């Protein structure tokens, strides 16, 4: 079977409407061939619908979908060179592991021997050699997930889709499986679109992340871009925690803005913002707890303190409001009622529009 190789996926102004409800609204993006791109967002933001439009399980109401440069907007799932790993795995319960994996080539009309050979190869790839005769119900959740991956890989699709593939696994397994998926993607040079609502998972596996909110793309970029330069308050809050505060930009010069945050003064990249009211996103790690720190700091009182092993979560009352602070665990465990000062780290503080 000739291998088509990975292909890019492009959405041009795609919308999906169900009656009055708009599930996806004028979305455009490109997934480069051979990249793993995550669609990230809270539930109901349209990310799964977007993925299903790539698969051909939903046909876009408007716009164009291109795979490998070819317009596939009206093609059904069966006509697209795309495979999908479902959230529920969707393994056929009446077929053995081998029959499940060989389903694609069998349906395509290949001989049984050939289909089984292809299936066995991919099953070995995901580490399931020796499980061919079992039925899905006789496998653990992690093994079922691998069967689903192997089944999707057998036809060597141009694009591989994952719909929240880890949501049915326990926390420890998740970390391992997501790394396996990433390794597989890089080893086989696959184009992968991956849906998740877990930002940590997204940061860990992706080449690029497309953050969706309310049926639209909120921001797209590399994990680092999203974390360090969030386009808006939503992204700042969704990718890693952030304290979002209203601030005033007093002056802008040479791309740097002077910002007044309560009694403290900060100099930050202006990111094109003019002087006036703005928002600031401060990562919980970027507020440093000191007993009697530098001048440029926020005075505060600890309201709540939770001990979490390697760090302490704090809620601190300050003149600019209640702040969430993550402090590395040190000798003096801060306790509720302590008066402290919060200094600012060099990174993890950005202005957002």
């Amino acid at each position: 079977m000739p291998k088509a190789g990975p292909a890019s996926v492009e959405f041009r102004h795609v919308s999906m409407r169900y009656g009055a409800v708009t599930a996806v609204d004028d979305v455009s993006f490109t997934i480069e061939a051979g990249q793993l791109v995550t669609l990230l967002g809270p539930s109901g933001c349209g990310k799964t619908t977007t993925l299903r439009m790539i698969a051909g399980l939903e046909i876009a109401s408007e716009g164009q979908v291109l795979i490998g440069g070819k317009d596939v907007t009206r093609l059904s799932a069966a006509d697209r060179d795309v495979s999908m790993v479902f959230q529920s795995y969707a393994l056929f319960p009446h077929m053995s592991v081998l029959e499940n994996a060989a389903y694609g080539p069998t349906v395509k009309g290949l001989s049984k021997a050939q289909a089984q050979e292809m299936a066995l190869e991919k099953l070995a790839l995901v580490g399931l050699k020796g499980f061919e005769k079992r039925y899905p119900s006789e496998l653990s959740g992690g093994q079922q997930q691998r069967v689903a991956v192997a089944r999707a890989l057998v036809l060597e699709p141009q694009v591989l889709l994952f719909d929240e593939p880890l949501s049915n696994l326990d926390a420890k397994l998740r970390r391992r499986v997501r790394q396996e998926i990433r390794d597989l993607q890089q080893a086989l040079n696959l184009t992968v679109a991956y849906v998740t609502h877990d930002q940590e998972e997204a940061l860990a596996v992706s080449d690029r992340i497309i953050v969706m909110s309310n049926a639209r793309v909120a921001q797209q970029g590399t994990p680092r871009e999203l974390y360090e330069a969030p386009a808006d308050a939503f992204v700042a809050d969704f990718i890693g925690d952030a304290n979002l505060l209203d601030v005033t930009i007093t002056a802008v010069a040479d791309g740097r803005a002077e910002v007044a945050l309560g009694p403290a003064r900060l100099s930050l990249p202006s990111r094109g913002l003019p002087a006036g009211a703005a928002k600031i996103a401060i990562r919980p790690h970027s507020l440093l707890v000191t007993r009697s720190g530098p001048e440029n700091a926020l005075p505060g009182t600890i309201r709540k303190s939770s001990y979490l092993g390697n760090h302490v979560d704090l809620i601190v009352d300050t003149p600019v409001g209640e702040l969430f602070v993550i402090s590395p665990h040190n000798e003096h465990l801060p306790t509720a009622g302590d008066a402290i000062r919060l200094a600012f780290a060099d990174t993890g503080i950005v202005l957002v529009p």
Partner: protein
Amino acid sequence: MRPSTRLALLAGWLGYALIPWYLPEGWGLAGYPFGRAGTALALVLSGASPWLMPIGLALVVATLLSGRAETAGTGRALVWIGLLGLVAFFAQGFAVTLPEQGIPWLAALLGGAGQSQPGMGFGALLTLFSLLLLMCHGLAYRGVCRGDIFTTSTIGVVVLLIGLFIFFPVATILRSALIDQNGALALADFVERLFSPTIWGLGCISAGTNCGVAWNTLILAVLTGVITTLLGLACALLVLRTGMPGKRLMRAMTVLPIITPPFVIGLALILLFGRSGAVTGLMADWFGIPRSRWIYGLPGVLLAQVLAFAPIAFLVLMGVVQGIAPSLEEAAQTLGAKRWTTFRTVTWPLLRPGLANAFLLGFVESMADFGNPLVLGGNFEVLSTKIFFAVVGAAHNQGQAAVLAIVLLVFTLGAFWVQQGWLGSRSYTTVSGKGDSGLPAKLPTSATVLSAIVIVPWVLLTAVIYAVILVGGFVKTMGRDHTPTLEHYRTGFAIDFSHGLYFEGAAWPSLFTTLKVAAISAPLTALIGLLTAYLLTRQHFAGRRLLEFTTMLSFAIPGTVLGVAYILAFNVPPVEITGTGLILVLAFVFRNMPVGVRSGIAGLAQIDKSLDEASATLRARSFTTLRRVVLPLLKPALVAALVYSFVRSITSVSAVIFLVSAEYNLATAYIVGRVEAGEFGLAIAYSSVLIVVMAAGIALIQLGVGERKLGRRHVALASSAAEPSPSRT
């Protein structure tokens, strides 16, 4: 064009040019390819039937397109060819029929003024399907249903079948109610018939005469609905909420109405309580109570219907009681409510929608019931029997029958509408996927006692009834002469071995016909039902809601109405099939289709949609998905649909009593005939044979289904999909 489209076209040519167009008389092929056994092509070329030419033209144009690629343009052309071909097909079919009938102006337009033609046959059928498929394939080329030929074609076929065999007959009823003998519109006659005192008269209140049939039917239906619901509730509560003994027996009772032909209960009641019945005789001998005919009339019919339909209410309410999450009652108890308070404030309000549902079911069953009122009614006439006598009786008044059928249809559709629209949104007792570890509350003692008092006589009477049915065939005359005898069985089921195997008994022909017709119609019913269920649950297309509504609607059409509709609609060309075995098969298929749809929907609901999608993303088209993924998982539902349509075909009487002929007589119609002739012994013997045959069949098949293992995890599929659905007469 895709190969499948070329195949459809080829079938069209086969039907048009090679196979006789009309329904043959006695399979004679004299004169082929002209005359009665002629092909459409020959008839057109010889100038005998010019009105068939447009159909041929459609095929010619489609053939010219057969080399074209499958683009949207080709698709549009095919849609138009198919559509115009279908229009031409139906136009000539309805315009040129019997002499003096049809649509004269249209016939003249098509070049067949004053001509006539017989009913359509296999050639026409094949051509019809070909045109339909051409249109559906064209739609698929244009991207409808994601370009899936199988889906569009299935939708087309299902819609055509429902239109032809449900809508068309029912519309024919309306038509024949509105026009007089000469085909002219007769609104005045219609209004007079519709509001006639024989239907709506209130004589039973004011004067000492009978009330109108509509009132009789309504009163009977309301009483039956209320009593069956109460019995069913009492029974469900006792079985599920107490430690009552004999629970398994009670559950087994729910199978009885499925395998009992509807009038058999009435028959047994006559043998017990009739003027010369067993109980009547005892009463007269021991207590001097004079023999009377009290059983003939409202009391008898009501008793028979309650006995026949209470198990259905029991089945429904058992589901409702089970559906109440025990944790709700436990919550009430932890908030300080006593048993009775919990029952009154939590359980009962949650039960109410289910009760209303059970009532409506009993109500509709009673309205649609034909056998019991026929056997036990006496002077107490209801709509279904009145319709029957209007058609087959001395009066032979089809207009009257049509009007009565409309009244009955309005009643049942009204009940159906209330059930769907009002109750559908009001049911609280949905079982969530989450496990509920609570224990159901025990029934308060007073409710237990009350329930027991209600159901003990019912269970006893049911037991006696079935004992009578089984014993009745083995005694000379039930009630008079209890000498054991095999005479009834010999009359009905004797086999003569003297000259090879010869089925001598009088009942054999009807039994064989019944089994044959049921065996042919059951797979068709299952197929159409399951395909429809698949379309309704798994495919999105314009008009899906309408199709769903229509299928649901056919639940509400009483058998009597369907029977009348079929003889009115299929007695004349273009579809002239009365008196054949085919009409029996069709009647069963479309009468039982809701059973297939229902079990299909229930089965499909348990198969996660992502399995279909996974199959699609692995390049399988919907037909492959259906065959390799859905059907294997749906096997239990398939078997259930097969069994119940088979069994219902055997027990059904209301629809087929109009459609049987001397050549094709059915078991139930034969038994009703015996009852009318007073041969109770043979009738009861035959009934018990039917019951035993069906019980054995069900047991056999359930054994087979029970042993099926579906990937080990999905064994739960079998139990729920194989749940018996309420039978209707």
